[in-house]
Structures are given as structure tokens and as C-alpha cells.
């Protein structure tokens, strides 16, 4: 029941955020309508970074407490984080092509986001290929490596690219943002966070069920083995 109420709230939030982003926010002067992708791009980026932060915390908690619920939370946040990070990486070039005239540039932010995406995809691949009871521990270790790598990646790529001219970002950022645009960004962020929380909730419940199923299978196998001994 709680889940259904939350799903309805998320749907309403997403609808209102859509209205804010597509109609209520003013048209950007130089870029025109294409700038509206900003209301999806930036909130997705913030949401995915928070998901990765949650994944790191859950991984540390798992290693400290050996609590399988923390592991279920870690895998859910990583998957949802990768989904939102993918949204960022897809909407970025869609915007950049008409505005910058190029799909992609090895600029500091773009490259850092791409490396972040690569790190968490490798995390998901490790989980997929790893077998048996060791999976949560190995995944948690990799999550710690990945999270600590992010500031180093950021530092290195900023240094790498500050020596080169950067494309001019035409307006739309920082203090130059119209208050109506801010409203749209924040509403979209709230809506996307709610949506991410909803997805994590679903994925978390699925993972818990999967863990219980694994346990049941293991118990059954043990029971059969014992039965064959006594017979």
C-alpha cells in the first residue's frame, strides 16, 4: 500500500515537473527549445551521483556488518545510478550537437562522467560474473575502489583538459539562470529523485526475494543431501 501511494506521488511529481520544464520555464534566448533538455540532463546527473554515493555507503556497511540487506541496497542503487548516468550521457550529446556543433568533446566534466559510468558498469559486470557467496564481498570491495577513484579521475582529467581550449558553453549555467528555470530544474530534480527512489525500492525488494530464494534452494539441497545419507 505504501508503495502504491509513493508510486502515485512520483507520477504526479513527474507530471508537474514535465509541465515546469516544457511550458512554465521561459524559452532560452540563444539556444531556443533545445535548452529544455537541461531540465532532464542536470537532475539526472545529480540523481546518479547520489545513487553512487548511496552505493558506496551501503558497500561499507556491508563489509562492516555483513548485512545482506545492505548488499541488496548496494546493487539496487548501482543499477539505478547507471541508468541515470546513461541518461546524462545520452542527453548531453543530443544537446551538444546543435549548440556546440559537435556530439562529444573530451572536456573535464564529460570525460569524468564517462569514466564514472565505466566504473559502475564494471561493478555490475563483476556482480553478474561472480558466483556463489563471495559476490557481495567482492562487489563491495570494488565499489570502494571505484568511489575512491572518482576524485582522482576528476583531478587528473581537469588537469589534462585545462591546457586545451574548451568549447564555449552558451549561457544556461550558474548565476545566469533565470529564477523560473531554477524552479523547473529543482522540480525535475525532486521528481527524478522520487522516481529513482521508486526504482530502487522495486529493485531492492526483488533482490531480497532473490536472496531468500537462493537460501531456500541451498537449504533444500542440504536437506536432500542429509536425506540421502539417512536412507
Amino acid at each position, binding site marked *: 500500500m505504501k508503495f502504491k501511494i509513493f508510486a502515485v506521488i512520483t507520477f504526479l511529481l513527474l507530471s508537474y515537473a514535465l509541465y515546469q520544464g516544457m511550458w512554465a520555464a521561459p524559452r532560452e534566448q540563444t539556444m531556443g527549445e533545445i535548452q529544455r533538455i537541461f531540465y532532464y540532463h542536470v537532475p539526472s546527473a545529480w540523481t546518479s551521483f547520489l545513487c553512487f554515493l548511496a552505493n558506496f555507503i551501503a558497500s561499507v556497511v556491508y563489509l562492516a556488518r555483513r548485512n545482506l540487506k545492505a548488499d541488496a541496497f548496494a546493487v539496487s542503487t548501482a543499477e539505478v545510478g547507471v541508468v541515470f548516468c546513461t541518461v546524462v550521457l545520452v542527453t548531453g550529446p543530443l544537446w551538444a550537437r546543435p549548440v556546440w556543433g559537435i556530439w562529444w568533446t573530451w572536456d573535464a566534466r564529460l570525460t569524468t562522467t564517462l569514466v564514472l559510468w*565505466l566504473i559502475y558498469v564494471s561493478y555490475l559486470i563483476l556482480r553478474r560474473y561472480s558466483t556463489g557467496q*563471495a559476490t557481495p564481498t567482492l562487489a563491495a570491495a570494488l565499489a570502494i575502489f571505484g568511489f575512491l577513484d572518482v576524485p582522482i579521475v576528476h583531478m587528473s582529467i581537469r588537469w589534462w583538459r585545462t591546457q586545451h581550449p574548451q568549447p564555449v558553453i552558451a549561457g544556461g549555467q550558474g548565476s545566469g539562470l533565470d529564477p523560473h528555470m531554477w524552479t523547473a530544474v529543482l522540480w525535475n530534480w525532486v521528481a527524478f529523485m522520487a522516481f529513482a527512489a521508486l526504482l530502487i525500492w522495486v529493485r531492492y525488494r526483488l533482490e531480497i526475494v532473490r536472496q531468500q530464494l537462493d537460501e531456500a534452494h541451498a537449504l533444500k539441497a542440504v536437506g536432500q543431501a542429509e536425506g540421502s545419507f539417512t536412507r
Partner: protein
Amino acid sequence: MSSLAAVTASNLRKDVRLEWRSKDAVNAMLFFALLVVVIFSFAFDPTAEESRQIVGGLVWVAFLFAAIVALNQAWMRELRNQVLDACRVSPAPANALFLGKALGNFLFISVVEALLVPLFVVFYNLRSVGPAWQLVPVFLLGTWALVVVGTFFAAMSLRTRSREVMLPLILFPISIPALLGMVEATTMVLTGTEMPRFWITLLVVYDVVFTTVCLLLFETVLHAE
């Protein structure tokens, strides 16, 4: 602490002796890296001026691929006759096992690098514009950066299906900043633009951070069941 050093030393001695007798890892790496050198020179066919610009990248890609060959083999040896299980139940500190293995790999890969650098010089007509001695810290720090995380991840990938495939998939993304540091520093020295002070600092930070994390987590990963 002394027992850590002693067990590390005996682990290292064992690995070096095994490698000295079989030369499996070093031979495989040498030939593999040689092939990469030859294939790259067909693919790019650079002049002396161009090669100074690109060789920093080629060298490290060649060593990275070669290191994967050695790192994948590093722990396989311990699976035969359940050596790794014996290490798990032994009271010796787990980090000694890790450090011995990492230092061994570092030694083998450094040997391969020392043998291959002259080949790069010959095949790509290299003449460094900047002071070439600056490459020594870059190579030492860069090799350790690859080896320490690589040895740790190789131990992790032992627990997965298709382990040989797994190692590069988890190692490459994490190593990106280190690789960027090595390539940029090497190119800076070769082209003589400036002293690669920032990149050496970055490699030191990377090495310190990840060596610490490896030592903190290795026991957990070794005993993961």
C-alpha cells in the same frame, strides 16, 4: 611487523624462484609486448617527430596488455594443489601474501619494461628532447600503480566465471587516471615541453591511496566465502 616482512620476503622469494625456473610470465609478456610494438608500428607508421608524440601512449598500452597476461597467471599457480586454501587457513598475515605477490609482479613487469624500452627506441627512432632520467620515477610509479590494483583484482577475479576476461574489465576503468598520468608524463618528458610535476604527484597519490585500500581489504577478499 617483523613477521609481516619475513613472510612477505619468503613469499617473494618463492615467486621469484618459480619464475626464474619457468620464466613463464616474463617470456609471455615479452613476446606479447613485442607483438604489440610491431603491430602498432604497422598501424601508425610514424616519423621520428610523430613518434615522440604518440609513443607515450603506445608504450603504456603495450605494458598494460602485457601486464594483464602476467597478472592473470599470478594467482593461478596458487590454485594448483590448493595452495591458496592452505594460505587461507595459515596464521600468516594475509597482507604478506598480497605484498609478496605484488612485489613479484612488479619485479617481473619492470624486467620486461627494461628489456622492451630499447626496442621502442630502435623501432620508433626515439630521441628524448627532455631529460630522459625523469622517465625512471614515472615508470616505477606507473608500474606499481598497475601492479598493486592489478594483483588485488586478479585475486578477486579468481572467484568469478571466466576469470581471464574479468580482470581487464574491472582493472581498466579504475586504472584510467593512473594510465592518463603515465602517458602524459612520458609524452611531456619525450617532447621536452615541461617537467611532469603534476602527473608524478598524481601517480604518487594514486599509489598511496590504492596501496592502502588494497592492504585494508585484501584479507576480507581472501576470506570471502
